[in-house]
């Protein structure tokens, strides 16, 4: 299970391993709308995520 952490503190666990792209699609996120960090560094969508991995989700589209 990979954990997605959101800026508001919410956490979602996704039951899948594999590329970040796969994990994002499975979790219902559109990869076009987010940037993902792991251990403080941005990672691309082909990054292979393993069980127990935790990543931070950054939404791109807020406005005002």
């Amino acid at each position, binding site marked *: 299970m990979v954990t997605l952490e959101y800026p508001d503190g919410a956490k979602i666990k996704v039951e899948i391993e594999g590329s970040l792209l796969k994990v994002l699609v499975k979790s219902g996120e559109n990869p076009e709308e987010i940037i993902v960090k792991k251990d403080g560094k941005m990672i691309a969508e082909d990054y292979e995520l393993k069980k127990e991995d935790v990543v931070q989700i*950054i939404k791109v*589209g807020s*406005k*005002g």
Partner: protein
Amino acid sequence: MKCDFCRETSVIHVRHTDKWFCEEHLVASVEKKVLETVQKTFMINRNDKVLVAASGGKDSTNLLHILHKNFPKVEALFIDEGIKNYRERSKSFIKKFCKKHKITLHTSSFKEEFGTTTDQIVKLDSTKTSPCSKCGVLRRYLINKKALELGADKLVTGHNLDDTCQDILMNIFQFNMEKLARTKSISPGFVQRIKPFRRVSERESMAYSIIKGFESNEGACPYVSESFRSLIREELNDLEFKFHGSKVNLQMIFDRLVPNLEKKVMKNRLNKCENCGGPTSRKVCKTCQILEQLK
């Protein structure tokens, strides 16, 4: 995947160009896009005094940084509309940023200029129209007024590729021909507005900001009337994910169509405002009407 330009591990895949970038090359690519946009369309002359309307958000902050690095006379303008728990944050970010990068920052506020704030306007408005319809108009007016006072040759806004595409589709779906056609950046009494960030996507802009370690205010304005724009944004991002390049294609086709559209739509519709002489399709422009109401 390795970066398409070096041996480093990539940190982002930019779908519309189908390129993988490491941090360094993402930064270089964004800066190149901005400078190419400026050069190809002759947006900025070397000696121009360039004023960036800096909101404290990522797009205008990134742009301010890139232009300041590349042109000799670049300054920033921050407008405080008076929105509690929102603009104070933006102001503190942009103040810190300009101090650190030695950029001259000019500030102005609705309170100083109009004797009121967006918060007060919303409170007193019984019509319950979107706060943006007034706030946005007053903001544009004040930015232009300050740009004129400061002797700016060019006024820069941080509109990115996503903003541009959303605007195009919103105007089409709302049958807003005039807004769609009114892209001319030069009108009498107005400092020329330019959008050097229009080829950079929202996601590239966010990545640039993160890599550079810039602080910016990404919280949404509490009044932002998002429902329609959000829907368009979602659909566009969905399209972009499934059919890479959709946004760029939309922008390119629009750029080619707009000169004809402009000729057709604007020919008979644009008058001069009886009061200020600015362009309008009515007798008195929207800004003058709102300013009159505030008196």
